């Protein structure tokens, strides 16, 4: 147990140091949500991978299962399903209250998030 914790902490420390060094240049570290994105073969898997990313990065502004009142942050259930380019642009560069995510989320990951948003927050 102690050894496992040590390895765990070592990984954490490495990630922390890398992230702290340059926020913009470091590729996204291997982790569970990213692995899920890379391994997703079907649309259902992509939606599931998107949900994991959503919980980790988006939920604290856009609500549990994408449900929020939509008056302070965007109600993603209302996002037009045929405007992927707008979604990608907003997530990548930020817009209004939305912060930019290009240094955190890869194109594959934003695709997975889009699959989750298109599915209406379901998986």
């Amino acid at each position, binding site marked *: *147990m*102690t050894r496992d*914790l*040590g390895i*765990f*902490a070592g990984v*954490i*420390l490495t*990630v*922390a140091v890398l*992230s*702290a060094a340059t*926020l913009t240049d470091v590729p996204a*570290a291997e*982790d*569970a*949500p990213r692995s899920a994105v890379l391994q997703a073969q079907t649309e259902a898997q992509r939606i599931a991978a998107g*949900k994991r990313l959503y*919980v*980790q*990065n988006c*939920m*604290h*502004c856009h*609500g*549990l*299962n994408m*449900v*929020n*009142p*939509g*008056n*302070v*942050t965007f*109600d993603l259930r209302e996002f037009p399903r045929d405007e992927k380019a707008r979604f990608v642009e907003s997530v990548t560069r*930020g817009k209004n*209250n939305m*912060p*930019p*995510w290009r*240094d*955190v989320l890869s194109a594959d990951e934003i695709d997975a998030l889009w699959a989750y948003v298109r599915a209406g927050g379901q998986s």
Partner: protein
Amino acid sequence: MEATICHLTPYNALSPPSAEAGFRCGRTGMKIAVWAAGLALLAPLAASAQTAAELASGETSSVLTYGMGYHQQRYSPLEQINKNTVKRLVPVWNYSFDDNRSEESQPLVYKGVIYVTTHNATMAVDARTGNQIWKTKVNYAAATPRIVCCGIINRGAAIFDGKLFRTTLDANVIALDAKSGKELWRQNAGDIKLGYSMTMAPLVAAGVVVTGVSGAEFGTRGYIDGWEAETGNHLWRTYTVPGPGEPGHDTWAGDTWKYGGGTTWITGSFDPQLNTVYWGTGNPAPFNTAVRPGDNLHTCSVLALDPQTGSIKWHFQFSPNSPFDYDSVAEMLLATIEVNGVPTKVILHADRNGFFYVLDRTNGKLIGANPYVQMNWASGIDLETGRPIETDVARKARAGELVTVWPSILGGKNWPPMSYNPRTGLAYANTLNFASNYQAVPADYKAGQWYLGMDMAAGWTFPDGPRGYLKAIDPMTGKSKWEAPSDLPRFSGTMTTAGGLVFTGGYDGELQAFDADTGDKLWKFKTGSGIEGQPITWEQDGVQYVAVTTGLGGVYTLFSGDTRLASVPAGGSLWAFALAPQ
């Protein structure tokens, strides 16, 4: 030139406030005439300076500290607005923040000027007219909100010696000239890349600017800092989670302490006579207890600190090894109440864990702890050890099972501060009435990203009917003398007066006044957005004013999924009220 060394010296808070005035001369050998000339030159400065004596005085023409006094009782002896006259209470002005985020700031008032903050600006407003005197914007990197868990907010400023002190979302502490809004100094207190942010109002205690940090949901390690008011020099840092060699470090396994949470995101209270600051600490990280076996000191605790050094005099832990996000950051309200017939200096604290605590603040000894809301995770508190007597709900949660836990992870009461009225002996708190569907899941640590270890998608269990109650609580029993229900839970602070009133706000935008003895709702006014602010009152030119910020967008708005709030527009502003002529 010599005369210029005769300057305003902050009053020594260790002495009784009546002992001496706030002016001192820097050189004893100076001739009286020169000293007088120096004072004359400094007269304009004196008008905008605040001494420690003023901060401790509690006089009613000002609101100089978070909590309306170092004790944070949020009680005013003013009586002009009372049970009989409150029906004549009307708005006298409204000041727009030009902001659509949550407005949780407690305004300060000094010599006819209101100082109020948002996440992106600090403002000085004429208290009589609502005219803006100055506005200084706060710029932070666009990426900053990524690491702010529960609303893009700021909870207010501190004032001392002609300066305003505030924190910023990107974890800086800044000092502004209270006259002009010009920035005087800035110090970084945390790295946003690691998840640190700041939302709390600083405390100035014994001349030291004391600040805490946010970020436990991102795997930060909490601390409290002391800063020199004049220069911003860093005086001390006390970590809430002890490092190697510090007392309590052995309550953490392996390296878990490095990411252990225990943040300090609400302002502490201060007892000048005991020279002690009382500061609550937040939840351990992650929620999943399997990651961090042990009591996890000093999370979910109160720390008694020396303001000059930051050293810990004593601690009391409310929820050891908490799985349920039961932060203990909420106000440590200082009062003197009778315990077994003896007037006793106590801390009153309504913990998120659902128990109302009474502690002896001279030594941290537990006096009483009783439930003030519905709960199922513990059946009581052992008064000898202070430890909760946990039920199967807590044990199952630790084992990874799905449980419904009362109160929810937002607590029996969240951060919105309660008030205490010495005339009624009651504490007035906005309490929450719903549960969490709780299940621990693995937590993936990645610097600057959400580090929770709980399946948030499992959501809440809401009862039919009210999700919150304004309660008038007897501190020694936890029982309510009266309760005012609300379908939408209230997330506003409360304020109580000698006029026999309790003021608070609702998510529907109503500022409300209740009878402090009976709970009858005597007055209301619709402010235009949901109220998450902290009402204050003061007297100026013979007129008693009440002010509050409005603007929804905090933790309940974001996490509850309560779509009824869609009918409440966003939009932040400050309202001021006074009695209309008869």
